């Protein structure tokens, strides 16, 4: 569609309130379904796997937040409150689909099989970290699980996801039919204000890239509430402006998220089109361990949202169908707690990456100046071993 052909003859302004975008809701807080709602097809196995992902993530977040307070980690950042949004979306995608996230999507990583130990290698920047200990905690990435390494600058992954998906489309073109794989791109309500958001969304629409954009609208960007982030009808209304198929879901409603994601992926791969999902949720915890939300929002507001906890809601639904029991719940929680703590302890014994890794991977191979620099540095550290943690190693 280029532009509409309808005409009027009196000046009449249109505003966002004329296209309120509704929210898809399937599951009530008590675990029952809304009237007229249709349950997505979801096997018991998959439902339990999703649920387990959610509780594992919650426990990981709790434990790592304490570990950070104890000084065992330098930094941490939780997904609490948004587990259904993340686990419910990733579950609708193929393991071969690329995920390009923001940083609060540990549930997606877990769903794909990232082990507790793997989390620890990254969080502690040991020599076992797939990212070689180079980035701050929570900047996970694994090629094996098709999870692109997180990068701190916000929204940069949005045009990148469009480009990645375009590449997937070209590969599909050769096979004929739809794309075999697409890209799932997460971002926050704050990141959606960046210029890269606009560039990436528009390019994906114009260049027909099979990518599903998943906006986690959790009400805040650090201390900034969405009311100071945008004046329109959320992020979804922008998708419509880009000519993109768009849906808004209750992000605390696992079934709504999953149903929308299944449908979105289908559109993306079958018709080479980007889709936007906006999931309305809430960041239950602090922005990160460096943040204290009491400076900018009320306990009452937080409590209101705690009552809509996505994990509790899904648990009630599982219980209602007898797909999960209190016993299983207790056992799972216990085992995850134990696993997380013991893996943390074990990985804490692992050494840091070697000094030489400082100059690796800047280029495919270190050019002369980096070879010179690392030689000089190693020599310096050797001579002054007492002043450097790495002094022992060299």
């Amino acid at each position: 569609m280029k532009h509409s052909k309808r005409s009027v003859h009196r000046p009449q302004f249109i505003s966002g309130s004329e296209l309120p975008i509704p929210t898809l809701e399937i599951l009530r807080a008590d675990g029952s379904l809304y009237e007229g709602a249709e349950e997505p097809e979801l096997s018991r196995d998959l439902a339990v796997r999703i649920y387990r992902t959610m509780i594992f993530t919650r426990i990981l977040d709790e434990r790592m937040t304490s570990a950070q307070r104890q000084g065992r980690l330098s930094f941490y950042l939780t997904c609490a409150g948004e587990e259904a949004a993340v686990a419910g979306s990733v579950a609708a995608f193929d393991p071969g689909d690329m995920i390009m996230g923001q940083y609060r999507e540990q549930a997606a990583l877990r769903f794909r099989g990232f082990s507790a130990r793997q989390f620890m290698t990254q969080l502690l920047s040991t020599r076992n970290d797939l990212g070689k200990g180079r980035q701050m905690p929570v900047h996970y990435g694994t090629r094996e699980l098709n999870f692109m390494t997180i990068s701190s600058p916000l929204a940069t992954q949005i045009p990148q996801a469009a480009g990645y998906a375009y590449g997937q489309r070209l590969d599909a073109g050769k096979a004929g039919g739809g794309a075999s794989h697409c890209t799932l791109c997460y971002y926050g309500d704050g990141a959606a204000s960046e210029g890269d958001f606009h560039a990436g969304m528009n390019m994906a629409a114009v260049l027909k890239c099979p990518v599903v954009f998943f906006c986690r609208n959790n009400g805040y960007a650090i201390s900034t509430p969405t009311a100071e982030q945008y004046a329109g009808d959320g992020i979804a209304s922008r998708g419509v402006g880009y000519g993109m198929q768009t849906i808004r879901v209750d992000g605390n409603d696992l079934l709504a998220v999953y149903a929308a994601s299944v449908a979105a992926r289908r559109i993306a791969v079958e018709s080479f089109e980007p889709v936007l999902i906006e999931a309305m949720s809430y960041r239950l915890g602090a922005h990160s361990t460096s943040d204290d939300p009491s400076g900018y929002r009320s306990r009452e507001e937080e409590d209101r949202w705690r009552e809509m906890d996505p994990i509790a809601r899904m648990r009630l639904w599982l219980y209602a169908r007898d797909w999960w029991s209190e016993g299983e719940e207790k056992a799972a929680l216990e085992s995850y707690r134990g696993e997380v703590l013991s893996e943390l302890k074990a990985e804490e014994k692992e050494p840091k990456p070697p000094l030489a890794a400082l100059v690796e991977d800047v280029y495919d191979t270190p050019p002369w100046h980096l070879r010179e620099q690392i030689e000089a540095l190693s020599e310096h550290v050797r001579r002054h071993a007492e002043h450097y943690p790495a002094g022992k190693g060299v």
Partner: protein
Amino acid sequence: MAEMNLLQAVNTALDAAMAADERVICLGEDVGGFGGVFRATSHLQEKYGRERCFNTPLTEQGIAGFAIGLAAQGKVPVAEIQFADYIFPAFDQIVNEAAKFRYRTGNQFDVAGLTIRAPYGGGIAGGLYHSQSPEAYFCHTPGLKVVVPSGPRQAKGLLTAAIRDPNPVLFFEPKRLYRAAVGEVPDEEYTLPLGEAELVREGEDITLLGWGAQMEYLLKAADLAAAEEGIACEVIDLRTLLPWDRDRVAASVRKTGRLLIAHEAPRTGGYAGEISASIQETCFLHLEAPIARVTGLDTPFPLANEKEYMTDQWKILDAIKASLNY
């Protein structure tokens, strides 16, 4: 006089500037009610209202562009970029717009009032994206002034000068020192002149030059050099990087015959290169050893082995000795 840290000095300077001139406006991500993630703008919204101290949407290019428009209209915006690592989306607005505004309009319009503040530098376990020192990118940009304070007293005096200066100023704050650097700061408003370096310590044997968080290391190295080898270092805090105080540096090098420049940013294309090139042009016949550079490696800023990666007094001391023994 009051003892305060660098962060408080910044906050004090902003507070006084807002009190003195109602055109002064603070804006940026989380700078409003929350007072910024480092709390540099604490209490300013309470005191001066939501119209003069406010959160912006999360867009650095927007913050810079918006602040440029405000400045062109006659206001005195002080925009915060949350981390210097996130200034790059604003690069076009700063380099193509703010820096060239007065020139391209033939002095009909300008962005005289514009100041952009950003915490920079490593040493806080920040990895690639919470550690960068991007000053050299901006020092290659005619039309900008670039200022870096090394402690609380400098922070207050230089920031006040930056806000009043009739040119766009980038003000990079060494975040490692936000709470670590504590010192006496005059209560009244005062300015330290932009474009003038500060002679921090006199000496005869070698000139040590740096800015911001390097000054601490340079002074420690000077102490060590004096104690271990009886070397008398002259130490200069450049303070303003663009335009820089070449005469002050050249005068010192003519006296000592040796120059060492330290910065945290990667070596290649870093600002030490410019200073070295200029000083060898001006002081060629006075140089008794090559001008030395102690800098970050030519890699992204790492997390693991950060201590090894960064410049420090030991590396500077080694370079001092190498220069003296040349």
